[in-house]
């Protein structure tokens, strides 16, 4: 294999693949390599950890001699990022890669491409087309709420679904829930009830890859195909395949409170500041901040044995009787982190019922978060 290609394009093509390369030792050593194939003026790069496979195609590469090889992913990526020549001549002969540059010559041991498994990127049935930017936004706004422990497998991922003409993402770890849905033209062509549960780590890597590959292309779209075991994301220059989570996602719609008694409007920056301040006086064994709503004021308090106590207050706009509710402050802060609005709406009934934070509730976009309270204090 002998190719001549643009260094920056090669580096940009490799970067999205790297999250799919296993960091730890793996039973299949070939997975530590990136598969590179040169043919038809294109360079196809593949990386996989068998749960997540990413393929990126780089056009307009001068192929002097077609072929394929397995290159140590980490080393090759580092090498391409270190050299400075705008154009690179890469030659693989036998199990040795040669890269001559203006500053010197590099050689690298490669492996036989025969050892690499055939990765499956099968597009089956009708796909859901969605804007890349919106997809990334929805996943990022919800995935942090999914469960991290392996024991509760069905909540270890983000549920992607189509509800009427909307595309929704939802995640929960059983204590809080993140939900975002938006109008999606592509959803009209998809049967309502379409849904797939995807592992959050693979999804995180996918969002990073999509963001990198579509940078500067605000109108870029992707198509999602779902089979019984796999989900496939197809972009113009890339394909991402991942195994789906087999399991029953909780009945989240019934857990979202509707028509609560008290409705509060917060200034986001002030809310965040107050929660942060009172969080100082919490610890691992007592991660709780008490919110008390009276009139036009919200009071925040916390107390930790052997540490101290905190109490702060801010003005709010409130409708309803108010009351008291206790939350894990980390859950509130994570919501505020993904909020782009200046105002945050909060609804709740009483100290034993879930509270709902609404960041957006218009026709175009619905973004809400439900947090279960802490009781017993």
């Amino acid at each position, binding site marked *: 294999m002998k190719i001549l290609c643009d260094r920056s394009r090669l580096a940009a093509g490799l970067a999205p693949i790297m999250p799919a390369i296993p960091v730890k030792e793996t039973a299949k050593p070939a997975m530590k390599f990136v598969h590179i194939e040169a043919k038809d003026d294109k360079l196809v790069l593949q990386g996989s950890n068998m749960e997540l496979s990413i393929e990126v195609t780089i056009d307009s590469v001068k192929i002097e001699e077609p072929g394929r090889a397995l290159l140590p992913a980490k080393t090759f990526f580092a090498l391409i990022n270190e050299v400075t020549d705008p154009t690179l001549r890469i030659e693989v002969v036998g199990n040795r890669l040669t890269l001559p540059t203006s500053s010197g010559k590099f050689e690298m041991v490669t492996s036989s491409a025969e050892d690499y498994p055939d990765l499956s990127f099968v597009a089956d049935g009708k796909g859901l087309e969605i804007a890349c930017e919106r997809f990334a936004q929805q996943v990022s706004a919800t995935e942090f709420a999914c*469960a*991290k*422990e392996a*024991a*509760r497998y069905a909540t270890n991922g983000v549920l992607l679904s189509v509800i009427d003409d909307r595309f929704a993402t939802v995640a*929960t770890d*059983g*204590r*809080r*829930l993140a939900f975002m849905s938006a109008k999606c033209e592509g959803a009209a062509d998809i049967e309502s009830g379409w849904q797939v549960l995807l592992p959050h780590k693979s999804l995180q890597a996918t969002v990073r890859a999509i963001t990198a590959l579509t940078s500067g292309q605000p109108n870029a779209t992707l198509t999602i195909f779902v089979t019984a075991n796999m989900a496939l994301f197809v972009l113009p220059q890339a394909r991402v395949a991942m195994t789906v989570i087999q399991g029953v996602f*909780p*009945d*989240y719609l019934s*857990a979202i409170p509707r028509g609560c008694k008290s409705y509060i409007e917060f200034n986001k920056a002030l809310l965040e500041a107050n929660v942060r301040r009172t969080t100082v006086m919490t*610890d*691992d*064994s*007592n*991660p*709780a901040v008490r919110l008390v709503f009276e009139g036009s004021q919200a009071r925040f308090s916390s107390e930790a*044995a*052997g540490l101290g106590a905190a109490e702060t207050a801010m003005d709010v706009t409130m409708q309803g009787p108010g009351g008291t509710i*206790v939350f*894990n402050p980390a859950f509130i802060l994570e919501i505020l982190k993904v909020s782009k609005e200046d105002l945050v709406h909060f609804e709740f009934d009483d100290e*034993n019922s*879930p509270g709902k934070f609404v960041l957006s509730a218009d026709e175009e976009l619905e973004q809400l978060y*439900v947090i*279960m*309270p*802490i*009781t*017993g*204090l």
Partner: protein
Amino acid sequence: MVIRVLAPAVVSKIAAGEVVERPFSVLKELVENSLDAGSTRIAVELEEGGKSLLRVRDDGKGMGPDDLALAFVQHATSKLVDVDDLDAIVSLGFRGEALASIGSVARARIVTREAESASAFEVRADAGVISAVKPAAGPVGTLVEVRDLFYNVPARRRFLRTASAERARCLDVLTRAALAHCGTAFCLEGARGMDLHAGEALEERVAKLFGKELAQKALPIDYEQAGMRVGGLAIDPDGARRDRSQQYLFVNGRPFQDASITHALREAYREYLMPGKFPVVFLFLGIDPARVDVNVHPTKSELRFVEARLVFSVVRRAVLAALQTRTQRVGARGAAQFDGARSAAAAVPEPVTGFPDLPRGLFGDDGAASRVAEARGGHVVPAPGSGAPAPEVSARLQPTAASQPVTELRREPNPFRAVRHFLVIHDLYILLETEDGFSVVDQHALHERVIYEKLLAQSRSGTVAVQRLLVPEVLDLAPADKEALLEHAAALETAGVLVRDFGGASIKVEGMPAALRRPDPKALVDGLVAELRLGEVPREPHEVLERLHSRACRSAIMAGDRLTEVEILALLEAASKLEHPHNCPHGRPTVLSYSSAQLERYFKRRV
């Protein structure tokens, strides 16, 4: 088929099979008789592991010719008079079966002499045929000789093991007897380790029988509650074994086996031992004889407690109290790994001294007959081979109202209180410079302990923060498990676990302790159900929490989690306040310490 009444000879052989199984069971019965006779010295000889000859000589009170004539007669005993005596048995033997059984399956001979008698007397039994009592020569005390065991029951003889195997079992019997009766000298001919003097302390016996290294790891048990007294030695978790073979249990001086007590030991050591490791314990339980039934099995190795759960709880607390007195041994272990065997020997800390005197009246040097006397209101029944009346009975058998540990606790130093600098290695270990050397800390294990103790403190103060679940976790249980679980729903709720009936075979978990960062309702419920199946019902909310969290405390920072300097300082600050900083709730060590002296020896700065 015709039903026949068996001949007395056949009946006695069958009965003998229940009591006399192998040489060690013969030895056990004879040693018990010697102890019941108030002996201060018991000497044993074995040939072919006791198969061809087993001889026990004691200096007890001996028997007169009239008692001797009945010695080999079945159900003839000096230790019981009427059926009421069975409710308060304190002598080691009482069934009147042993000598009769031995006499029916071997060639046996007894030579005995009372102190006031001018001569000794002898009686023989050969396959159940008992000779007349004849005068003989002999010192005060009793000699029992058993030759050719099972010579007339070939089927039994075939199942005897090799001489060395039988001898090993006999040695075990003597070991148990010697542990329980420190006031009596024991010797086994040809066994150098079994040459024990009368009046030794328990720790001396343990050192002689099991080695000084083990004895140095002994923590005294001394606890009293609900009219029960628990004494003995709990060996430091460092000395744990891969089996239960060194768990020696005694009730009122009688060796016994009991799954519930074994479980209590495991529970007490749970936080200190890894799975697959078993504690070494020498445990002596003193209890009113009326509260325990020893007449369960002919070999008397099994017994039943009237208040089994209470005994479980008292034993667990007693051993826990002992474990809380652990002295710093971690450094010694570190030295062994670090500096090789030579320096390990030098690095072993000073032997633990100041063992409180064990309640000898109860566990040690008084004769069992005395306890019979106590139980019978002072009426002493002369035992075969015994002469002297029972000494005064220990008042420790009397119930006490107070429930409190009697040992003054000696806390192990907290290694996190004098930290100067630290260094993180592989995002897993924290290297600490301490006042006298350095320590290596497992950040995950230490954080587990920090969380665990905070949760316990919350639970004890009744303020466990409960994180309600968005969607209750519905779990299916077997009917009995479900019923048992719901019965304890209130205690669980106080511990932060909200469990409700969900109809049918299901329950739902609606809330979990908020401090669990990675809650797993199923694991928690499974763990609790497993406890309930064992019949170990935690009574206090904090006990529930203790059990649950030691199984499911997975909220700690993980190996590989990168901690900021502030986080590490916070962790160390929290660790400096821990009650038990040396182990995580699952028993793994949290810290390994090296002293400056060990480093100096290793680097040859100090020769």
